[in-house]
C-alpha cells in the first residue's frame, strides 16, 4: 500500500508551501523585506514532516494518507499565526510540536495492538479523571479566568483536560463496545420514552456526574461540554437510540442550568454570552473584541500580520484582542484572512472529521469503530466549542483550537489522538485489502 503513502507525501507539499508563504507574509509585514528566514522555517518544518512520513511508511504503511497532512496544515497555520503574535511563543510551540511527534511515534510504536487499552479501561478512566483534579491542588494548580484548567510544575505547564478527553473516549469506546447489545435489547419504554436498562443507567449517570463535577469543581464549562457531547455522540453511534441522546441532553442542560444559577463562574460565562454589551470594558471585553476583530476582517481580511493586537501608545501594553494566541486565535484568523480564510480553516477541520469517520466506517471490530468515532467526534466538537465560543454561538470558554492555538498539552494530546486514529486506520485498511482479514472480521461483533 505504498500508494497511500505516496499520496501523503504529495499532500505534504502544499503544507510546506503554505507555511513558507505564511512566514513570508509575516516577515514582509514586520521587516518590510523578505528574509530567507521564512524559507528556513519552511524547510525545517517540512523536514520534520518528511521524517514523520518516513516513519509512517515503515510502521503504518496502510494508514489513511490524508489525516497527517491535514493536521500538519493546521499546525503550520497555527505556527504562522503564533509567530506573528510573539516569536518566543512560536519557538515554544515548535518544541511542543517536536515533542508531540515524539509521543506520536511512541504511541504508534508501542500501541500497535491498541486493544490492550480495553484491558485497562477503568485504570485509564480513573487516571484521566484524577489528573483533572490536579489544577485544584495547592502549589501546582493554576487558575485562568476563574477556571482551574492548568497545572504548573516548575517550568512545565499543562492542561490535564486535553489528556482526559483521550482517556474518556477510550473508556467509553470500550465500555459501549461491551454493553451496547444489552443496552439496545434491554431498553424499555417508560411513559412513551425509551430508556436504557437501569443497570446501564448507572455508568451513564457517572459520566454525567463527571461532567457536572468538572463544571462545578474545575469550573470548565468548555471541557465539560466537549466531554459530554463526545459521550452522547458515542452513545448514539453504539446504540442507535436517538432517545438516549435526548435524555442525555436534557440531563446536561438541566444540570448546566442549575449550576449556571448557583455557581458564579458558570453564571458569569452565560451572562457574558447573552449580554456582552453590559460590561464592554469588563467581562464582555474579550467576546466583544473577538467579534469586532471579525467585523474588521470582512471577506478577505487584512492580511497576514496586519491585525492590531495591542492598543498603540498604551502603557503597559493593553490587549485589543485578549488571548489572541489561545482562545481568540480564530478571531485573529478572521481578522487577518477574512471570512474566506476562516472557512478554509473550518473546511480543514471538516475534512479531518470526514477522514476520521471514514476510518471508523472501515474498521471491522466494534472497539476500533467506536474508538475512531469517539476520537474524531471529540476533536470536531473541541473545534466547535472554541470557534462557537468566539463567534457567540455558545458561551466562550478556555478550550484550545486543536493544532492551531498555542499550548503544549493541546498539541501533544492531539498528536496522540492522531496516532490512535492512524493505528486504527492502518489495521482497517490492511484488513479491507486482504480477503482473509475480511473473513476474520466477520467473526467479531461489528
Amino acid at each position: 500500500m505504498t500508494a497511500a503513502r505516496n499520496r501523503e507525501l504529495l499532500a505534504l507539499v502544499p503544507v510546506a508551501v503554505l507555511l513558507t508563504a505564511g512566514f513570508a507574509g509575516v516577515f514582509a509585514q514586520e521587516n518590510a523585506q523578505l528574509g530567507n528566514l521564512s524559507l528556513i522555517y519552511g524547510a525545517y518544518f517540512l523536514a520534520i514532516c518528511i521524517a514523520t512520513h518516513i516513519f509512517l511508511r515503515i510502521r503504518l504503511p496502510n494508514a489513511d494518507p490524508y489525516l497527517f497532512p491535514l493536521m500538519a496544515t493546521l499546525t503550520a497555520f497555527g505556527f504562522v499565526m503564533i509567530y506573528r503574535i510573539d516569536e518566543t511563543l512560536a519557538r515554544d510551540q515548535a518544541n511542543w510540536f517536536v515533542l508531540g511527534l515524539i509521543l506520536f511515534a511512541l504511541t504508534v510504536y508501542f500501541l500497535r495492538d491498541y486493544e490492550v487499552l480495553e484491558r485497562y479501561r477503568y485504570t485509564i478512566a480513573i487516571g484521566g479523571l484524577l489528573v483533572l483534579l490536579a489544577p485544584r491542588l495547592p502549589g501546582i494548580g493554576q487558575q485562568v479566568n476563574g477556571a482551574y484548567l492548568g497545572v504548573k510544575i516548575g517550568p512545565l505547564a499543562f492542561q490535564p483536560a486535553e489528556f482526559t478527553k483521550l482517556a474518556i473516549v477510550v473508556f467509553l469506546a470500550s465500555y459501549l463496545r461491551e454493553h451496547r447489545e444489552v443496552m439496545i435489547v434491554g431498553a424499555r419504554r417508560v411513559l412513551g420514552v425509551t430508556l436504557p436498562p437501569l443497570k446501564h443507567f448507572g455508568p451513564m449517570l457517572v459520566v454525567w456526574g463527571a461532567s457536572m463535577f468538572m463544571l462545578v469543581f474545575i469550573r470548565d464549562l468548555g471541557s465539560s461540554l466537549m466531554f459530554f457531547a463526545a459521550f452522547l455522540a458515542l452513545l448514539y453511534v453504539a446504540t442507535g437510540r436517538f432517545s438516549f441522546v435526548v435524555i442525555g441532553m436534557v440531563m446536561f442542560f438541566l444540570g448546566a442550568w442549575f449550576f449556571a444559577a448557583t455557581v458564579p463562574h458558570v453564571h458569569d460565562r452565560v451572562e457574558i454570552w447573552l449580554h456582552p454589551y453590559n460590561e464592554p470594558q469588563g467581562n464582555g471585553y474579550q467576546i466583544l473584541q473577538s467579534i469586532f476583530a471579525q467585523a474588521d476582517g470582512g471577506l478577505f481580511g487584512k492580511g497576514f500580520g496586519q491585525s492590531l493586537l495591542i492598543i498603540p501608545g498604551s502603557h503597559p501594553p493593553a490587549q485589543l484582542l485578549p488571548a489572541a494566541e489561545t482562545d481568540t486565535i480564530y478571531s485573529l484568523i478572521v481578522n487577518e484572512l477574512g471570512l474566506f480564510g476562516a472557512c478554509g480553516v473550518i473546511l480543514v477541520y471538516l475534512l479531518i472529521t470526514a477522514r476520521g469517520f471514514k476510518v471508523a466506517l472501515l474498521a471491522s471490530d466494534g472497539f476500533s469503530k467506536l474508538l475512531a468515532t469517539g476520537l474524531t467526534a471529540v476533536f470536531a466538537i473541541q473545534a466547535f466549542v472554541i470557534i462557537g465560543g468566539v463567534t457567540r454561538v455558545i458561551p466562550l470558554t478556555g478550550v484550545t483550537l486543536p493544532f492551531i492555538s498555542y499550548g503544549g498539552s493541546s498539541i501533544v494530546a492531539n498528536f496522540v489522538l492522531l496516532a490512535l486514529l492512524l493505528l486504527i486506520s492502518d489495521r482497517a485498511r490492511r484488513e479491507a485489502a486482504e480477503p482473509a482479514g475480511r473473513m476474520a472480521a466477520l467473526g467479531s461483533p461489528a
Partner: protein
Amino acid sequence: MNRQIVKLFAFIVVLFGVLVGFTSYWSVFDAKALKEKEVNRRPLLEAQQIRRGRILAADGTVIAKSIGKGKGAEKRYVRRYPEGSLFGHPIGYSFVSQGDSEFERFHNEELVGEESEFSSILDQILGHAQEGNDIVTNLDTEAQRVALADLEEAGFGAVVAIEPSTGEIKAMVSNAPYDPNRVPYELKKLNLNTIETPLLNRATQGLYPPGSTFKVVTAAAGLESGVITPETTINAPGSLEVEGTPLQNDFNEDFGPISLDTALTNSVNTWFGQLGQQVGQDQLFETMEKFGFNSTPAIDLPNQGPESEVAQSGIYEEEHLLHRNDPVDLARVAIGQERLLATPLQMAEVAAAIANGGKLMKPQIWNRVIDPDGRVVDKLDPSVYSEAVSAQTAEELTTAMEGVVSEGTGTNAAISGVPVAGKTGTAETPGNEACGGGENENQAWFMGFAPADEPKIAIAASVECTEQFGNDVAAPIFRDVAETILNGE
C-alpha cells in the same frame, strides 16, 4: 453502527455550517453596524496607523497634515492644522477620539487611501503599507484670510466665493471660527458654546432670511416665464395691502410705473411683491428649485442623512420645507421675507449661476487627488448642476444688478476699474434670540459677481445680528474678497 456514524457526520457538518454562518454574520453582514458601535475602538485605532493624506490650499499652503508619533507597531499619526482657525471651516477636523467633520469626513476615503478589497490584497502580498492621498483644494489662502478678517470685524456670519464657470469654491469662511487643533482638548466646550456656535459652518448650515437679495430670483422667474421683459413697467406705490397687512417701500417712497432696472437698483418692495403675485407660485418655485432651493447643495461636504452638514434653503414651516402647493404669502416670499430662509452658499450659487450665463455649476471644494507617488489620480471635472435661467435672462439680470452697485443700494461693493453686479439685502430680524433679542437687529447681505462683463468670481456675504444695512457691512466684504481674488488671478 455505520449508519449512525454517517448521521453523526451529517450533524457535525451542520454544526460547522452554523460556525460558518455566524462568522459570515459578524465579518460581513453585521460588520458595518459593529464597526460603528461606540465601544468598538478598533476602526479608529487602525485609522490612526495610516498616514492620512495632506489637505492643501490652491497655492500649496498646507491646511492639514498628519505627523507620526511612536515607532513600529506603536506608530500612530495625529492630525495637525498649521493654519489654525483659517480653514477650520470648511475643512473640519479628524481625530481618533473626537471623530471627523466637514471636508475631512467627506473625503475620508481618498485621504486614508482606501481602495477596493482586491487591490488591498495585492498590497498585502507586496507588503505595501496603506498610505493616504493628498487633496489639493480650490481654496485661496489670501481670500480666506481677507474674508475672515472682514467678518471678524463685521460680526457673526459667513462668506462664500465661487468661480462661476467651474463651481470651484475659492473661499468659504464662517465667523465665529474655531481652531481644529484645539478639538482634542475642548470639543465639549466648543459644542456647548451656543452663542458663538464655532463648530457650525454658517456658510452651509446658517439659515437666514435672504431679504432683498432674493429679488434677483423673483426677477429671474418673471423674465423666464415671460411675465415681464426688461421694459415692462409695474406701478410701484409706497405701500401695498397684501394679505391684510401693508407691504411698504423704505420711507413709503412711491416710485410710480417703473421697469426692472429701476426696481432692482432701488430695491422696491411693492414692485417685486406684485411681480411675485403675477408670476405665481408654480413658476416662482420652479425658478427657485433650478437655483438649488429645496435641495441639498451638491457640494463635497457631508450632505446625507441626520449627520448632514449642508442645509437646504427654502420656505420653512418649523423644521419642514414647504412645497409649491402649500399656502404661502407670495408677495412677501418675492422680497425674501415670509418664512423664506437661505444659506450663504445658496445665495452664492444664485450669483454664480447668473454670472455663468444661467448655468449653475456644482460647487466643489476639492480640485485634485494626488497619490503618495505624486501622481494625480483624480481631478475635478466641472459639471452643470442645472440650467437655472437662459443666457438672455442672465444677461438682463446682470444689467439690472450692475445698476445696484453703480448707482443703487449696493455702492460699497464697487471696485475701481472693474464693473460689479450685485444685490444687497437687509432682512429685519427683530427679537432674534440668537442676537440677544434686540429690536433693531438685521441680517445684512450682499451677493454678486465681478467683473460683470466677464465674471471670475461670485460671492455671497452675510452678517448676523447687525444694526447696519447690507451695503454697510456686507458689500465691503464682497469688495475686499473679490478684489483679493481678482488680483491673485
